[in-house]
C-alpha cells in the first residue's frame, strides 16, 4: 500500500498555529517523522480556517520540501491554491481531490495534464456520497472517461470510494470494499484506489484498532493507497503483515523492520 502521510493538515492545532505564525518547525518535524515512518507521499492541507489558502499552501509546500524529498499530495477544495502549489512542487505531485462534477473535473484534469500530476478522484457528485457500490463504480467510470479525454491514463488516477464512519454509516463498509474490488474491472490499465483511512473510525472509541482492521481488509480487496497516520506503528506493522499474506513482499524474519525502513 502506498502510504500518504496525513499529518500536515491545518485541522491539527499544531499545524494551524504553525501556518498562522509562519513557523516552519512543526511542519518540518512532521515531514521528517512521517518520511522516517515509511510514508511515500506527504499530504499538504492548509485546513478550513486559513484566510489566504494560496499563500498558506505555497508556504507549507516550501517548508515541507526543505525537510523532505517525498512527493506531495496537495489537498484542497480551492483549486487556485492547488494550482499555485503545483507550480512550485519539485517532484510530480498528486492532486487531492476532484469529484465527478463536470466543471471541477475540467479544471482539475487540465491542471493534472499540464503538470503531470496524479489525481485523487472522489466517487461522488453533486448528489453526495452514493449509498451503494454500483453508483460509486459508475462515478469512477465517469471520472476515468473524462480524464482520458485530457490524455490522462487511468494509472494516474486514485479513485476514493469514500469511507464513512462505521458507527454512523455501518452499511457503507461492505459497499466500499466491493467498490475497491470492482473498480479494477472498469478499464485496462485499471485506475488505482485510495481511502482516507481514519474516516472509518471517526467518533469511535477504538480508533487505532478499527483503522488497522479496515486497512488490511481494504488491502485484501485490492486497495493501492491510503491517507493514513504513518506515526501509528501498529498500523504500519499490520500493513507489513498484510503485504506478506498477499504475497506482495517476500517473507523473512525481519519483514516488519524491512518494511518500516524502506524509506529510511
Amino acid at each position, binding site marked *: 500500500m502506498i502510504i500518504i502521510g496525513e499529518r500536515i493538515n491545518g485541522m491539527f492545532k499544531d499545524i494551524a498555529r504553525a501556518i498562522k505564525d509562519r513557523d516552519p518547525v512543526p511542519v518540518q518535524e512532521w515531514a521528517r517523522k512521517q518520511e522516517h515512518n515509511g510514508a511515500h507521499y506527504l499530504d499538504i492541507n492548509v485546513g478550513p480556517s486559513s484566510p489566504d489558502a494560496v499563500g498558506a499552501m505555497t508556504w507549507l509546500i516550501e517548508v515541507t520540501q526543505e525537510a523532505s524529498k517525498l512527493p506531495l499530495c496537495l489537498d484542497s477544495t480551492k483549486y487556485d491554491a492547488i494550482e499555485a502549489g503545483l507550480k512550485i512542487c519539485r517532484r510530480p505531485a498528486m492532486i487531492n481531490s476532484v469529484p465527478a462534477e463536470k466543471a471541477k473535473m475540467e479544471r482539475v484534469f487540465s491542471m493534472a495534464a499540464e503538470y503531470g500530476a496524479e489525481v485523487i478522484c472522489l466517487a461522488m457528485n453533486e448528489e453526495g456520497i452514493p449509498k451503494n457500490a454500483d453508483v460509486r463504480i459508475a462515478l469512477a467510470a465517469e471520472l476515468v472517461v473524462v480524464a482520458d479525454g485530457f490524455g490522462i491514463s487511468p494509472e494516474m488516477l486514485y479513485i476514493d470510494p469514500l469511507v464513512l464512519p462505521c458507527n454512523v454509516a455501518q452499511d457503507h463498509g461492505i459497499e466500499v470494499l466491493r467498490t475497491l474490488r470492482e473498480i479494477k474491472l472498469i478499464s485496462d490499465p485499471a485506475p488505482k484506489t485510495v481511502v482516507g483511512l481514519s474516516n472509518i473510525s471517526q467518533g469511535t472509541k477504538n480508533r487505532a484498532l478499527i483503522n488497522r482492521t479496515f486497512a488490511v481488509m481494504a488491502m485484501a480487496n485490492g486497495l493501492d493507497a491510503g491517507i493514513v497516520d504513518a506515526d501509528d506503528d501498529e498500523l504500519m506493522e499490520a500493513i507489513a503483515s498484510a503485504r506478506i499474506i498477499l504475497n506482495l513482499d*517476500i517473507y*523473512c*524474519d525481519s519483514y516488519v523492520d524491512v518494511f518500516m525502513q524502506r524509506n529510511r
Partner: protein
Amino acid sequence: MTVEILKEKYRNTVGEVVLGATREQGGTRSHTITVGGEGALPFLHFEGSIPNRPVLALEIWDLAPAEWGPLFEKYYGDVWSDPGAWASKCVDQYGADLIQLRLKGADPDTKGAAVEECIAAVKKVLEAVGVPLIVVGCGKPEIDNALYAPIAEAAAGEKLLIGVAELESYKAVTSACMANQHNLIAQSPIDINICKQLNILIAEMSTAMANRIIIDPTIAALGYGIEYSYSIMERARNGALQGDKMLAMPMIGNVGIEAWRTKEANQPEADEPAWGEQEERGILWEATTAMAYLQSGIDIMVLRHPETLKVIKATIDDLMQDNSY
C-alpha cells in the same frame, strides 16, 4: 496503425559488484570484473539493460583432488599439486574468466593445512594469474571462521570474493570482508526467506557490505532438484526487479561440483553401456545444468570441465546479442 509491443516495466535493478582491483585501485589484478546490474529478466535486452555478461570460473583446490578421478587428471593432473600452475592453466589454456580457490586442504579430514599454508596458496594464485579471485573455505565453519580474517588481511586491497557466510555463521567472514574491503558470498540452503534474512543481517552489520554481497542460493544439478533451486532464484530475481533491495544482489552457483557428483556424470560406460560415453555424458550434464541456470539470472558460475566452459561461453556470447526492438 502501429502495434505497441507491451513490455514489462521493472522498478529496480540488481546491484553491481566489482570483483578484483588493479594496481591503481590498490590490488594487483590485471583487470576487474563487474557482475550484476540487470534491469530486466535474463537476456531480455528489449525490456531493460543487461550491462554485464555472466562470468565463468573454474574451480581449483589447494591440494590434488583425488576424488575427481582419471577423467579430470588428463586436464589438470600435471598442475593440480600446485595451485599457481593450476590457476594459470585454467586461465591461459581453458579461458576461465576467474578462478575459485577452494581451501579443501584446511579440512582436518584431508591434510589439515595450517592458516599459513592457506595464505600461501592464495598468494600463489594471486601471483600466477591476473584475473579476480574467489576464495572459499573447506566447508566446515569451525575451521573456516579462523581462516577468513588472516586471508582477508593477507590479500587486503585485492577485492576478493570470499565465502561463505551462512545464517548460523556469518559474523566472522563478514567482519573479515568489511575490514579489508572484500566481497562476500552469502549462502542459503535453497530457501528464499533465509536468503533475504541473511542479507539483512549482513547489511545490519555494515551498510557498505550490503553492496558487496553475492548471493549463493545453493544450486542442485539437473535431475537432483534443479527446478527447485531454479524457482528460488527466479523468485529472488523477480523480487529484486520489483524493488526488494534485500534480494537485489548478483548470484553465484557451484555448477561443477553439483553436476560431477551425479551418477549420470560419473558412471563408467562399462557399467551403463546404454548411457553412452562417460566424458561426453558428464560434460552434457554439467552444460545442461549451467544453461538452465543462465536463464535463472545467475551472474557467476563455477564450472569444472574445460569443455563445459567453452560451450557455455559460446552460449553466453549468443545470449548477450542485443535482441531489443
